[in-house]
């Protein structure tokens, strides 16, 4: 079986479970909405949102709901030891990683399709003026966040107190992605867009993705294998 086939099978497996139960998708979406609402209650004063607040709120909501989705995705794999079955299958480890990563990206993209309009609505942010650049920034940023997240969530499956440790590990490691995402989105929301600046942040996000996916593919095998004792 080729690598691409393995990846597709894993993505299809995750999406099938999700379309049948809807557990993670619905809870993540609801959580994302609550998150934006909480920020709106806290920050919008007399109908006036804080200046450039939208970009920050969008990325914090992505970060929080991404964390939740990551935890739940791998918790489901743990409950009936299916992650072990997946690792025992004659499939290459990098393909398993990429399959899980793409499944998660699909889930987070769905959440973002809801988050972006919601933030635009509550924070009066002109999110849709440059749809191409916004898509690029959001997808590249989510990829950076999810690439680190998938690796560590998979490793944490066997650890104690994994629910607490996932954000502990994930947030300090992904702050640069969130920083670049917020700065890029803020630059895009200005009345006069400085395209050189936007391009700089997009390039930074893409190089971040490249380094982190390479590093994750390289270490996934050794990190997910128990050596004989």
């Amino acid at each position: 079986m080729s690598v691409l086939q393995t990846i597709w099978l894993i993505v299809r497996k995750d999406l099938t479970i999700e379309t049948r139960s809807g557990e993670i998708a619905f809870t993540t979406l609801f959580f994302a909405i609550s998150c934006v609402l909480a920020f709106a209650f806290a920050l919008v004063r007399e109908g006036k949102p804080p200046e450039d607040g939208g970009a920050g709120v969008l990325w914090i909501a992505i970060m929080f709901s991404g964390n939740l989705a990551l935890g739940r995705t791998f918790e489901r794999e743990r409950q009936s030891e299916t992650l072990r079955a997946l690792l025992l299958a004659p499939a290459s480890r990098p393909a398993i990683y990429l399959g899980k990563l793409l499944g998660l990206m699909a889930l987070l993209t769905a959440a973002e399709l809801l988050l972006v309009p919601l933030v635009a609505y509550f924070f009066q942010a002109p999110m849709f003026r440059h749809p191409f650049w916004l898509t690029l920034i959001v997808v590249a940023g989510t990829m950076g966040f999810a690439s680190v997240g998938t690796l560590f969530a998979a490793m944490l499956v066997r650890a104690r107190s994994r629910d607490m440790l996932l954000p502990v590990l994930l947030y300090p490691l992904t702050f640069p992605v969130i920083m670049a995402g917020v700065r890029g989105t803020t630059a895009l929301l200005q009345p006069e867009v400085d395209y050189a600046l936007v391009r700089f942040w997009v390039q930074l996000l893409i190089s971040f993705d490249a380094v982190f996916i390479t590093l994750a593919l390289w270490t996934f095998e050794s990190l997910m294998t128990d050596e004989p004792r």
Partner: protein
Amino acid sequence: MPSWFTRTAVACAALFIAALVFVALAPYEKDMGLVQKIFYFHTPSAWMFLTAGVVCGISSARYLANHSPKLDRLAWASAELLVLFGAIALVTGPLWARKTWGVWWQWDVRLTSSLLGWMIGVAYLLVRRYAGPGSDKLAAGLALFGMANVPFIYISVNYWRTIHPPTSVVPKLPLSFGVPFYLSVTAFTLLFVMLLRLRVHLEEQRARVDSLYLSLDE
């Protein structure tokens, strides 16, 4: 206690006392006055913080490749020192900044990268403490990714303005500032090496006790 400890500890204490005397005798800097003296402790501890980060990152990367428990112990010990010296640097820095910049904190490249590096160190220790079996690999992966993060933090924040004094200040120090400064650096380096060796030694002893228990069971 290992045999080298007493001698090293005495030498280290002597160096610190000498450094204190020289720092007290050093002249006041003309613009900053007394607060400038915090540099004699801030800069050496920041250097030790960076050294600990490099040691931890490299030994973790090598541990992932060859699984030698020695490297794992070294990585753990240096992560603890990273948190310790990082805490000193992160406390003394704002004390100086409040007087000189007028604010406690600035989102400057060095401050941001130090804070994030320190947080990754704290996360490392939390993982080692609470993740249970397999935490060694988890922590090594964290250190590896943390190391890969450094250039990104640097690039992204460098795009903002910076007001932290540049490193080029250090080689140009006049003798009256240089002597106490390098004395202090030597004292901090010795303290770092001593604590690192002591911590690795402790983990080695612990591993030996564990293996003795295991052989008793068999």
